[in-house]
């Protein structure tokens, strides 16, 4: 279970998160919507431990431990995964090598045995196939020269292999064509289960047609201003965010 309690965070002098409260029980998928600049990506970075974000108040408990004290790599080992809004390019670093290094780092931290190259490739190939990606994806350098949609799919490939307990998807749907959207949704739905939960950040209902959320939250000006069932997304699509701040 993820519990965010009265979370305040700032970048430099600027307070971006101004008291976020949010609970995501195991097995549930919650959507976060909200206007540009509301702090959605900031929330995802604070949760995964990026430098430069200062938490001034509040706590984040995941699986019973305060993860704000952990470095990003330990949060990953604890089960957190962030699919980036803007995935980062790593020139010269092969995708397969990157994935195996990451997977083994996490397995090591969890006290599991590392995978050798053969075992890993078997896993990776299966994941590539299930995401309808070309196999040469594994040979290419991480995100270098990938199209926008390919980068997003690569995030999903990583998620499929790392098998997180809590996935944060930051606008994974933006830049995807309709088929890719479906594939990404399938990828998330495949992980669904009593031990998996997700925060899906999006601007559009169309993703939520495929990944049906248990709860929809609206983040505006650094606070959750409304939460409701999946129908809330439809309402937002019809009326926009106007007037929500006051609510």
């Amino acid at each position, binding site marked *: 279970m993820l519990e965010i309690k009265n979370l305040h965070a700032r970048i430099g002098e600027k307070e971006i998160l101004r008291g976020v409260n949010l609970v995501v029980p195991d097995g549930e998928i919650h959507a976060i919507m909200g206007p540009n600049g509301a702090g959605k990506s900031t929330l995802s970075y604070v949760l995964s431990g990026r430098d430069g974000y200062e938490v001034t108040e509040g706590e984040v408990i995941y699986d019973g431990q305060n993860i704000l004290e952990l470095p990003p790599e330990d949060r990953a080992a604890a089960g957190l995964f962030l699919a980036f809004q803007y995935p980062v*390019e790593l020139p010269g670093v092969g995708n397969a090598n990157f994935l195996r*290094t990451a997977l083994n*780092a996490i397995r090591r931290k969890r006290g599991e045995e590392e995978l050798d190259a053969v075992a890993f490739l078997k896993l990776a190939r299966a994941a590539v196939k299930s995401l309808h990606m070309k196999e040469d994806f594994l040979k290419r350098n991480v995100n270098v020269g990938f199209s926008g949609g390919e980068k997003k799919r690569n995030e999903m490939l990583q998620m499929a292999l790392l098998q997180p307990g809590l996935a944060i998807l930051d606008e994974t749907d933006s830049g995807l064509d309709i088929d890719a959207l479906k594939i990404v949704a399938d990828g998330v739905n495949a992980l669904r289960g009593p031990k998996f939960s997700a925060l899906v950040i999006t601007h559009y209902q169309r993703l939520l047609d495929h990944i049906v959320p248990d709860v929809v939250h609206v983040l505006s000006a650094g606070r959750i201003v409304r939460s409701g069932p999946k129908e809330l997304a439809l309402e937002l699509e019809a009326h926009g965010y106007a007037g929500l701040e006051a609510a």
Partner: protein
Amino acid sequence: MSTTEMQALAEQKYKYGFTTEIEMEAFPRGLNEDIIRMISAKKEEPDWLLQWRLKAYAAWLEMEEPHWAKLHHPPIDYQDLYYYAAPAKAQPKSLDEVDPELLKTYEKLGIPLNERAALAGVAVDAVFDSVSVATTFRETLSKAGVIFCPISEAVREHPELVREYLGSVVPVRDNYFAALNSAVFSDGSFVYIPKGVRCPMELSTYFRINAKNTGQFERTLIIADEAASVSYLEGCTAPMRDENQLHAAVVELVAMDEAKIKYSTVQNWYPGDAEGKGGIYNFVTKRGACRGRNSKISWTQVETGSAITWKYPSCILQGDGSVGEFYSVALTNNYQQADTGTKMIHLGKNTTSTIISKGISAGHSNNTYRGLVKISAAASGARNFTQCDSLLIGDQCGAHTVPYIENRNMSAKVEHEATTSKIAEDQLFYCRSRGLSQEDAVGLIVNGFCKDVLKELPMEFAVEAQKLLSVSLEGSVG
């Protein structure tokens, strides 16, 4: 942290820093004609070689250390060094007679000299301070007609070859350190690949400096006759000592018609401690002559060690259609300084050269690429491609690129690209969010940066080099 803990930590970083306790024979400190005569006599050299040494010594006395490199160090007192140190026991005739203490040393360095335990397909010449202590797989090689032996032995057994080629690529007066080396060189490897022979295994020399206050002056000579080919690898380590130690080697390569020489170096001399104390001064002259038509010489180097590196492996592209390549990774951390690069001298028609240089600087280090591409009037159709990339880690270090181009032929094509970048915060965070530690993330990104060079190394050593890059950067970030 206690001193022993500190030491343990430092040793973890430079795991080759141990010393070997073994009875040594050394000549008196300092350099003069008598020392040179003693070295020559010790090796039972013919008179022509002694005279050659003495001429080099006379030349050296009149020369000055070069000052054009971007390097700073206190003056070196050449009279305070030992110029010859060797294990006291008589030279072993076969591997079984090698001092067990030495075998253990090389085992610890990951270079088992026992042929059964050795890396498959790699023959090793092990040079310990001033002498070669063992050469493996000699029989296998001699069946193929390949000569691979200590150069002191080649002087005795193959004097005609040594006399013809020694100093033919790097003349005695080439530079200060080459002159010094010519006067006092004590051992190194000699390789001759006869016409039409592809050397059946990788050849390698492993240099180890052990004795205190001793300079190492090895000399390597590799000749590939017509249509012959060979891949050669050099590795080096030294104990951790507070004093700086001098290493001034000369390597000469000669490639005849259609011959190919691939020379790879993984240089891991002791770099000094985090405060810049100790470490090897590495002043090395490496040059290859592509004498024959369509011959090819390829240098690949991974330079992570030494307090100071001064080194420009070069190619003289004499034969028409000959090819020169230089692939380099130079990594400096803490207070290390490297001034390294290459010279590609195009003399023949349709000669081509490729230069790929990757410089990585961390800590307070300074890393300079210095290169010369020279195209003579006769070298019509010559082509060069140069790419120099620098990666900075932190903001206390320096990276410099000094490319010289001299083109006297209108039909020649010379291309140069250069970039400087930093490891970006978003790259590090991206890796860490996937579970990689900060250090693993840096290692991964740096190895990616060096990929175009590392893929040129023989497989077995590429993996070693990757690890070395990561280890050398430990503590440089965060």
